[in-house]
């Protein structure tokens, strides 16, 4: 008879504690994660984490909010979080995107930061759902040694936890790590840990309580270059005469292990596979189709080493910096191109116009620390408003270009820490009267007219005093 009493006591205790947690407005004990699988891709300098969570509502009340937890050191490098939910059964599964928002909780242990996933349909008691979460980290591979010579390969540290940090109880979890090569100097072992080829497996771990954490450190070879754009300013200038002019100013740096000592051209040219393997030789920019008048230059002039390949669906611009970029070396440059306006400018239903263009950086596989997008509207535009799929800082500026009298309105949008995932379309709405298009040609025409009138007058009027 003891056992049932204990069971009831235990039940009461759990209920009490549950009540206690509910009172503290923490929903965590309602939910538990029955199965979690995490795949961390370390092959490039952007760390990609795919997390599959099977969430179960063990509580009594339906809930539609699921929390993701991150240690504070990782949150600073977190570029994006996306969550998808699988809908339908068995073969007819479809993926639906869910809203994810950063959340502050008052009782976060050790400064843990949270993101809340909002389910479209509340999860009823006893039900379970499977979530696919993707998040990306930048600047998370620390080169060690921090300085390498030309012929050495680049080794980096990656720090994480063998256990998934979560405010929920996790019944079973596994973590897979993928390294770019089989060369792994060292790794922390948290039993059971296996390594086979380029993959490492941590787990499976059973029944871990909330906020379990077990730090791991992996030291491995990553010879891919780390192209980091410290600052990118993209200026998109709309001309209603049919052209969209894009100017992009880059401050590029190789974010990998710093170059130390000699740079020998003879070694670099004769043994490219052994020398400067992690150096950045070229970059690829993916531009919209029908691009024209492309240029690639810097403060001191044109850079002749670039190739443009165009087809009907996309344009690819391959650019080489003036010199190969070794770790810590910098290069600043400007890319500019024109685009046909009809591909990007549309009229909305309420008689306004809107520009539909891509946010983010066209260079492939690069991290952008700070991006400023400036949309220069034609002179005389009114009521600009921007629609961006993620939060950005916005303000307005005025710019004077050729023959401007009142100046052009510039919509400025700023965002930090961007990865290629952010290359999504955004819209800028504004109103514009087509009559303003004629202002500048009329000004020029009248200036020439006045000039000729002055010439006529000069030839026909005799201004001399003496006759």
């Amino acid at each position: 008879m003891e056992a049932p009493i204990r069971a009831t006591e235990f039940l009461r205790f759990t209920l009490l504690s549950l009540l206690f947690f509910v009172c503290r407005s923490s929903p965590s004990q309602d939910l538990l994660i029955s199965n979690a699988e995490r795949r961390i891709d370390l092959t490039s300098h952007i760390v990609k984490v795919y997390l599959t969570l099977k969430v179960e509502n063990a509580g009594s009340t339906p809930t539609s909010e699921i929390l993701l937890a991150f240690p504070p050191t990782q949150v600073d490098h977190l570029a994006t979080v996306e969550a998808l939910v699988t809908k339908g059964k068995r073969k007819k599964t479809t993926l639906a995107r869910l809203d994810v928002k950063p959340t502050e909780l008052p009782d976060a242990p050790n400064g843990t930061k949270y993101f809340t996933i909002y389910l479209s349909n509340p999860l009823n008691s006893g039900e379970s759902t499977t979530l696919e979460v993707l998040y990306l980290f930048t600047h998370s591979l620390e080169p060690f040694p921090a300085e390498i010579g030309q012929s050495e390969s680049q080794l980096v540290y990656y720090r994480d936890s063998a256990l998934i940090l979560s405010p929920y109880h996790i019944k079973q979890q596994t973590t897979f790590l993928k390294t770019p090569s089989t060369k792994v100097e060292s790794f922390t072992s948290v039993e059971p840990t296996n390594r086979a080829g380029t993959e490492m497996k941590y787990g499976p771990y059973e029944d871990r309580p909330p906020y379990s954490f077990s730090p791991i450190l992996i030291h491995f070879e990553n010879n891919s270059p780390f192209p980091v754009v410290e600052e990118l300013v993209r200026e998109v200038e709309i001309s209603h005469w049919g052209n969209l002019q894009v100017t992009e100013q880059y401050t590029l740096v190789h974010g990998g292990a710093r170059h130390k000592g000699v740079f020998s051209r003879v070694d670099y040219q004769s043994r490219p596979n052994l020398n400067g393997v992690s150096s950045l030789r070229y970059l690829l920019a993916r531009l919209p189709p029908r691009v024209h008048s492309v240029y690639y230059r810097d403060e001191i002039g044109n850079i002749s080493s670039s190739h443009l390949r165009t087809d009907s669906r996309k344009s690819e611009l391959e650019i080489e910096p003036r010199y190969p970029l070794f770790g810590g070396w910098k290069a600043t440059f400007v890319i500019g191109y024109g685009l046909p306006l009809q591909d990007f400018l549309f009229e909305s239903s309420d008689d306004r116009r809107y520009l539909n263009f891509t946010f983010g950086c066209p260079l492939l596989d690069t991290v952008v620390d700070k991006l400023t997008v400036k949309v220069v509207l034609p002179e005389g535009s009114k009521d600009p408003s921007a629609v961006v799929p993620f939060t950005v800082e916005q303000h307005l500026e005025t710019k004077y270009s050729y023959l401007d009298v009142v100046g052009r309105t510039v919509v400025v949008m700023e965002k930090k820490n961007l990865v290629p995932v952010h290359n999504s379309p955004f819209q800028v709405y504004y109103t514009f009267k087509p009559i303003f298009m004629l202002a500048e040609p009329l000004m020029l025409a009248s200036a020439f007219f006045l000039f000729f009138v002055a010439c006529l007058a000069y030839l026909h009027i005799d201004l001399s005093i003496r006759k």
Partner: protein
Amino acid sequence: MPILPNMPVLDLVKSFKLKTKQQELLIRVSILCLVYVLAFITRLFSVLRYESMIHEFDPYFNYRTTLYLTQNGFYDFWNWFDYESWYPLGRIVGGTLYPGLMVTAALIYRILHFLRFAVHIREVCVLTAPSVAGSYDNEGVAIFALLFTFYLFVKAVNTGSLAWSLASAFGYFYMVSAWGGYVFIINLIPLYVLVLLITGRYSMRLYVAYNCMYVLGMLLAMQIRFVGFQHVQSGEHMAAMGVFFLLQVFYFLDWVKHMLSDTKLFQAFLRITVTCAVAVGAIALGLGMLSGYISPWTGRFYSLLDPTYAKDHIPIIASVSEHQPTAWSSFMFDFHILLFLFPAGLYFCFKRLSDATIFIVMYGLTSMYFAGVMVRLILVATPAVCLVSAIAVSATVKNLTVLLRSKNKGVQTGSTKGSSSSKASSKALLDQSQPFQKNGAIALLFGAFYLLSKYATHCTWVTSEAYSSPSIVLAARGAHGSRVIFDDYREAYFWLRQNTPPDAKVMSWWDYGYQITAMGNRTVIVDNNTWNNTHIATVGRAMSSYEDEAIEIMRSLDVDYVLVVFGGVTGYSSDDINKFLWMVRIGGGVFPVIKEPDYLVNGEYRVDKGAAPKMLNCLMYKLCYYRFGEMLTEYGKPPGYDRARGVEIGNKDIKLEHLEEAFTTSNWIVRIYKVKPPNNRW
């Protein structure tokens, strides 16, 4: 004079028919417009073929200062002390340059921006150039200022008007602010006045024009800090002052002559006054020279009068290729038919002698002499040669058309009433030898037209082939006839700009100083300003010493990086190895430890196995050929084959002790070495 159509024409056309004066204006304006368009587009070859960029060496300094002027305003520019050049001395930029070019470009830039033309200052600079677009040098505005001053002065002499001579003083001021070549004006105009005085063409007009222009021009010129009080203190400007006093004496004598009716008395007075004046002038000049108040002529001025002077005394001037005497071939190449038309033009000038034509003759002759002495002064001679040749062509064509038209007039006497009596008489003379003259005239006209069109095409060709290369970017023909671009200079300068500490000091031969500061944005030890011979000689000495000795010099100058230009891989011949003997000469001129014979074998300059041991181990050789011995440059040649000199190098095992290779460009044209910090002693 228009040729009126004899045949009946449509009334409509008749009603639109222009008056003679209007026709003349129309033709003149359209010809001038065509000339401007042609002149403009021939200059665009370099922009179209390469890009809108600044060329060569000095223009980079001008560009850098213009950029500074537009960013920081005139007062900062005027008081600019440049820490980035001539380390550790620095350079007072505002006081050691001619600001005319920069101010002009900045002004154009401001005006364009005021009119809301959002051009970059670089575009303004590229198009403010004397020869092709991009060579943004002082001559760009100076040649205009020179001709403008001359034009206004001749106008002043012709009219005797104060307004014109005032305008010419301002033109002179503009010229002084733009270029050191203003010395040419301040010596040519007094010479011209002197010639007029000697030929008995003294007039009140001349007196007014010269006095006003000289006094005001001198006062205005003193406002330019680089020129300062040179107009009263330097030997080169004394001729103008002498002529100024001479004119006063002339005027005084004229007045005395007017007052004294007695010719005999006047003659005696004249003798006494002239003797006194000359004596006083000579004594003043002698005293000034002796007391050091008036400085003697500078080396540059001497080298103009004696082309061999620089070679013996100032190796820095002699080492610059554009200071060499001009070769005959380059005269032919640049002037083409003008060389033959020039004497003909002089003949026509002498035929119609006036104050103005005397000036043209003198300008043509003197500038032609200077063009022969120094290659770069062809630029000064060109306008004069064009002018004189144009006079020749114009006079010839005019005479020929007179011949042609006189015959026409014989047919249609009724329509031209106003022909002058002189023409009528000449017609009578011409009528006697009719058909030959007419046909001959037509043939000659066609000949002249053929020559002129050939000349225009030749000039376009010369501009495109010889003068449109920016020399920063090198172009060569590849194996398959395609164009290969060597952009190594900018590669290296941009590397310096991005990947070295902002306060790094770069040592290189002075040729590349301006480019390193403008494009690399780094401090240099010496640059193209060449104002301090000792400093340049120190760099020359470091380059020609052994590494252990050189490192002492480099440490004393705080050098962080050493930059050398090397053409052994690409076959680029104007590299530092080919300039090296000048470094030895200039270094040896100040530091006698450097001796030119040490680097030569039997008077021969070699880099292969037979080279002098000092040559094979000096710093310049080591830096250029470091690890070059491993490099295969040409198929079928041994490694370390120098393509610029066509030999296999003599020292393939080069070890560097105090320097390390920091960067080498993709075609090895620029190599940069880092000076290692001293070894730790503990």
